């Protein structure tokens, strides 16, 4: 099942039952910077705003995640060599040893390693990891502004060629 653009406006999977989300998503022994960056918004607000952004653009989250995951996988298979993922955009994978758990309890661990997607003309870039893709997919959580693994939904959709 894929989300329709309208569905992006619906509340994402409930995480608000977890106490003190800001603490859960802050720096920890697994994540030096945490997942919120310098964003003063509450996590639910970040998720809601990003869902609205996608809804306004008419992009459903599953489609964006699918495009990002394909870029991640293709770059990983290139073993560190740059690949083209869309018009004007390249991706490079950086392997790393170990796993990182989801910040949310009972959600398992994810391989480390990241793929950096860069737009050649503007120099804009962002990173995706197995965990960041999972958080977007499962929770609609693109991370707070200033987080090293924040994915701006509109920028990502544009760089992946989903919107003009």
């Amino acid at each position, binding site marked *: 099942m894929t989300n329709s653009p309208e569905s992006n406006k619906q509340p994402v999977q409930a995480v608000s039952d977890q106490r003190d989300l800001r603490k859960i998503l802050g*720096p*920890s*022994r*697994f*994540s*030096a*910077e945490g997942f919120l960056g310098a964003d003063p918004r509450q996590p639910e607000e970040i998720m809601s705003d990003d869902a609205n952004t996608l809804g306004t653009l008419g992009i459903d989250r599953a489609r964006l995640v699918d495009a990002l995951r394909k870029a991640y996988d293709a770059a*990983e*298979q*290139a*073993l*560190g*060599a*740059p690949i083209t993922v869309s018009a004007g955009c390249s991706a490079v*994978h*950086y*392997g*790393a*040893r*170990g*796993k990182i*758990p989801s910040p949310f*309890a*009972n*959600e*398992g*661990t994810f*391989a*480390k*390693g*990241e793929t950096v997607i860069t737009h050649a003309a503007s120099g804009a870039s962002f*990173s995706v990891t197995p965990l960041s893709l999972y958080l977007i997919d499962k929770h609609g959580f693109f991370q707070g502004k200033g987080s*090293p693994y924040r994915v701006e939904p509109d920028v990502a959709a544009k760089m992946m060629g989903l919107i003009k």
Partner: protein
Amino acid sequence: METAQAPTVAIDINGGKKIIRVKPGTSLLAGCARNGLFLPSACGGNARCGYCKVKVVGGATPPLAAELPLLSESEIAAGMRLACQTKPVGDLAIAVPDELFSVKRFSGKIVRKTLVTYDILGLRIELTNPKTIEFTAGQYIQARSAPYLGKDAVLRDFSIASPPSDSSGVDLLIRRTKNGIFTQWAFDVLKEGDAILFSGPYGAFRASESAAPMLMVCGSTGLAPIRSILQDLVRKKCNRTIRCFFGALSQKDLFMVEELHKLETVLADFRFIPALSSEPESGGWTGERGLITEVVRRNVPDCSRFEAYLCGSPGMINACIAVLTQCGLPEAKIHYDKFA
């Protein structure tokens, strides 16, 4: 006068090889550690890392909800549990890899810290207590960082890059990772003369005792266990055919090349083949070019008589397994240390 003793439960480890007694409700992870059996763990017992899996063979209770995301269905069916979440209230029997019995905690001192490339650090740790370490070439240790800049101490795994004969310490290769808590500490804070703690050795990656030709493929710091194995094979006067492929992007990512080429004159039938996938044509590189998988396929189109030893990122390992099996090597003969 008699004093009442606190009740304890018995934990039988590996069919009576070791029996410990712990207070009921104590986690297996903590109970084992208190009795000198150090199970790997990176989260300190919070059901987050999934490193402390043990097989419960007697007295098992179902896994807790917190364990389920970290255990596969086959592991659950086989009785695997997270030691940090298993708190026996009755006698229990568990099975762990035999090599864990030789795991110890070590303290050491950084006696050498050098950059071997722009993003890879070489560390030499000389042991202070105990003074020597026994391990098998290919194994890894779990090192502990110190708290810094508000960040907690963390545990991370690193393959030993030195041979077992060099038992007074260990060499490590550490690649800087963006936002990596341990690697930033190692690169930016740790200095020569500092103390460091680690436990080990861990892992089953090692050279077999067979006489089969060996095909080694590694990338980046995946060279560490391969270097340990090769140096160990030199000491053992190994005469097996060995082909060692080292994949990198460009010349600036290569290291220890001269040292490894020298082994071609020491080992009976050894070739070291570095290969670059993104080196500019103008760079003067005359060696192999292309993805390491392509280079292996080109040089060893029929792998069927080899045993393979792989160490690197999950992407590299998966790609190599695919190519090697296509080239006739059964997966059972592919040994790997995946960075995950």
